[in-house]
């Protein structure tokens, strides 16, 4: 984490506020707390915010607010947001996954790579809660971390042309879920029946930056049961607190 946030201009309609130069839950939580503050402040001329691993992008309309004025307003809010980090309550989702087999063809390679049994890979992957660092790549794709070192695996040497919808993958110290079929270079270890993105939803993505996710191993039978419930719109993966 930087002692003082860095302010960088991006193009002529965006500002980036950068909090560190590492991928870590600490830096990322700082980004989310700051994102909450900026969204709630509804500053004149601010259009949208994009939280990422270590920075928040803020787009603005230069006809409504000057860059200098925006920076000074955002800076004063940044000081306030430092207090808010501990208060922030994350939404917690439980994501059912069928590991291995046809749904997770790369789990064998991941296990071999780390001298583990497949069951151990499953245990490690589903054994901790992950933070949604950011949404990117394709609409609704959550970048989750941190993955345990014991199963951290580099990307595939040559990416697949088609990774099926719902695939759960790992790459380096991250894990993620493909909201739809797409090309991809992550090791695919399982699949979820959950739907992650639907433009008719408000908001359109199931998961949002700052949420937490825990994976729960399920059988193929349960996968299809949940799949049916998801199609009916009657499955809620969030823990009610």
């Amino acid at each position, binding site marked *: 984490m930087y002692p003082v946030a860095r302010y*960088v*201009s*991006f*193009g*002529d*309609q*965006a500002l*980036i506020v950068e909090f560190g*130069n*590492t*991928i870590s839950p600490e830096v990322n939580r700082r980004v989310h707390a700051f994102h909450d503050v900026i969204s709630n402040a509804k500053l004149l001329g601010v*259009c*949208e*915010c*994009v*939280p*990422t*691993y*270590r*920075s928040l*992008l803020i*787009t603005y309309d*230069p*006809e409504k607010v*000057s*860059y200098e004025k925006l920076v000074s307003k955002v800076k004063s809010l940044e000081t306030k947001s430092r207090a808010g980090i501990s208060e922030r309550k994350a939404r917690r989702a439980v994501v059912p996954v069928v590991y291995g087999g046809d749904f997770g063809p790369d789990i064998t390679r991941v296990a071999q790579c780390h001298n583990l049994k497949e069951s151990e890979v499953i245990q490690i992957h589903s054994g901790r809660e992950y933070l949604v660092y*950011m*949404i*990117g*790549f*394709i*609409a*609704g*794709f959550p*970048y989750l971390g941190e993955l345990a070192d014991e199963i951290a695996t580099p990307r595939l040497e040559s990416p697949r042309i088609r990774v099926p919808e719902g695939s759960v993958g790992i790459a380096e110290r991250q894990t993620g879920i493909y909201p*739809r079929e*797409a090309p991809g270079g992550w090791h695919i270890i399982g699949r979820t029946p959950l739907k992650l*993105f639907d*433009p008719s939803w408000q*908001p*359109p*993505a199931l998961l*949002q*930056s700052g949420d937490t996710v825990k994976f729960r191993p399920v059988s193929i039978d349960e996968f299809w049961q949940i799949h049916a419930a998801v199609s009916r719109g009657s499955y809620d993966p969030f823990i009610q607190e």
Partner: protein
Amino acid sequence: MNIAMKLFRVIKPGFFTTVQDLGRYGFLKYGVPISGAMDDFSLRLANMLVGNDPREACLEITMLGPELEALHDAQIAVTGGDISVRINDQDSQMWQTLRVKTRDVVALGKIQAGCRSYLSVRGGVNVPMVLGSRSTYVRCEMGGIQGRQLKTGDDIEGFEAIQPLGFALSVPRDFVPDFCAEVNVRVVLGPQLDSFTEKGVETFLSNPYMVTIEADRMGYRLEGPAIERKELVDTISDAILPGAIQIPANGKPIITMQDAQTTGGYPKIAAAISSDMHILGQAKPNNWVRFQRATLLDAHRALSEYNDKICILANKLLRSRISY
């Protein structure tokens, strides 16, 4: 009233024709790109020529135009890259209001200069709004006609109860853009300027770069002298916007365009200024791009001049009225 009315049937779809408006805003944080017209200037003018709100949806035509059969009387306009417009084998003009009658066949040719043309219809193209926009985003099958490019047999709908214009408008000749094979694009340096050596920045600003065949609505890969980076490791992925110029390890720039993904890890040396995006949107393979450094103040001034120019044009168009 939002009642759909069939306006055209697609006889030939052209090379890559999609429905676009000015884009989908407010969903970047969910990974949804902005999309929208690659050349917003031409899209706005196409709309203004048929008396629409400049933000309405039009057809964006790429390289080769479609052939359409009119299912209803309509008023249309064609702007953007130079393309031949024929209505029932009669040559017609771009950059002015055109009248089409039921059963007329509108055939657009091959784009001679520029890369994208726009066809507007009086009232706007009527496809469902998805997340506040009618723009097609093919990669996620979102917006437009079933989230894809036009195909033979599609019906293009407009709105019922839209009164036809009682006159025709035309864009004054000196406001019709020239589409050159070599363009200058102004850029604001950063946000990851510190990932590059001084020599790298110098290379970027002093050499022309050629658009390769890997160029589409997501972005353009450029060919030219490699831009030197300080380190070869990529940066931590962060947000990207259309116009960002990313430099991967091979040193060859990638310009992100309207359908680009919302995050990426290549360091960004600069970003095109907003008011030059429509110029980039008309660049095609084998065209050359030169990057000129601009300050943020220059960029903001250029943007307000650009907006003024569009207002001035709106007035000029009204004065060009020719009654039927």
